[in-house]
């Protein structure tokens, strides 16, 4: 059990270091490049399903009706980065997208959000909740790209 905890802490530390290092870089570059007034609304955030496992073998029966898209907003969950809300878009009777929208706040009213910081903070929020990320998926990387990738850092923790 101690070994698992030690491994977990080590891995979380690696990831936190990665994320926090990047966060400070992003903050600097975003401040330099963003000419928008402080009340800029967030960039369209990356979307993800809520933390409940997305079981890949689930097969809900869906009708392929061509009704228009509808958006539903779920309840807000408090995290240390602020409240997190989930929005889903339903089109043709099935969920076609899910938004995890974060509002990192200081005053509670201030929705000033750094466009680059939102995905980073979102990821930090999720990783801070429980165990770390096991795998990374994205557009295909080459073996050379792998060397600098987050996946290689994760693998290194388990080799």
């Amino acid at each position, binding site marked *: 059990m101690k070994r698992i905890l030690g491994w977990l802490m080590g891995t979380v530390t690696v990831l936190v270091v990665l994320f926090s290092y990047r966060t400070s870089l992003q903050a600097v570059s975003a401040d330099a490049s963003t000419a928008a007034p402080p009340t800029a609304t967030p960039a369209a955030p990356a979307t993800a399903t809520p933390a409940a496992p997305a079981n890949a073998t689930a097969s809900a029966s869906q009708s392929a009706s061509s009704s228009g898209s509808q958006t539903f907003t779920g309840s807000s969950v408090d995290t240390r980065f602020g409240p997190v809300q989930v929005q889903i878009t339903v089109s043709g009777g099935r969920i076609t997208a899910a938004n995890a929208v974060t509002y990192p706040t200081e005053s509670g009213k201030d929705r000033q959000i750094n466009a680059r910081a939102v995905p980073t903070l979102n990821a930090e929020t999720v*990783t801070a909740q429980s165990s770390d990320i*096991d795998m990374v998926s994205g557009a295909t990387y080459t073996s050379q790209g792998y060397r600098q990738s987050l996946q290689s850092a994760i693998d290194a923790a388990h080799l």
Partner: protein
Amino acid sequence: MSWTTRAFVADTMGTTASLHLRAPAPRITSGTDPSDPAAVSERAFDVLRRADAVFSAYRQSSDLLRIRRGALSEAAADPWYAEVRARSTEAAEQTGGLFTTDLVGPDGTRGYDPTGLVKGWATQRAAEVLREVPGVVFCLNVGGDLVAGHGPDADPAIPRTWRVGIADPTDPGQVSAVVEVGDGALATSGTAQRGSHIIDPRTGAPARSALASITVVGPDLTWADVWATAAFVDPEQAAVRMPAAYRIVATVPISRVDHPAGQSRRPGTTIPHS
């Protein structure tokens, strides 16, 4: 009970495969034990290596390239060639043409190029090998396409869910979203960092998308991969055609900053069209 994760890595198919095996806390196993993790990983990687030998678009000795230059007949090729050929036809039909293997190569000639399908297909086959290994709980990630599963008699106390970070396409050291996957497959399609574009078969040109990437889960990686590609080309059309077992679970938009008074664009972003 305590369990551990061991990772194995192999460079193949032009990318790097990562295999994570979860097992009860290590016990002494002999090298000939078929459940020995290192032996298991090699069996999985051998599937990928065979696929690379058959389908590599770079190694001149591959069946694919030998067939292209007339040095090998399809009938004499590795049986996997015919199987992938059949899947390619099926993929184009099922997606209504959003996915295609009829592509223009670097030399400017149009021809059969299954590389967009082979990676997912081969990874799925490797996963089938892993599913026969008693006691194993695994996740095999080949360049971002992954399958999670377990073998017979896997200890139910070992978790079968895997937290998958969806890479920020503009900064792959960053994660844009996290998806939890149980048994099954996950594939992400989108703009690679350098160069290669996903072609919209309807125009023959790179797909114009408001998305930087889109992620699909489902029972079979071949199809999760196909549908992720189709959904990148046209998310709404793909969502309508996609079988119920496949779902879009994450989308990463191309970043833009919205002004309250209108819309401003950061240099280099694509104007989304609906």
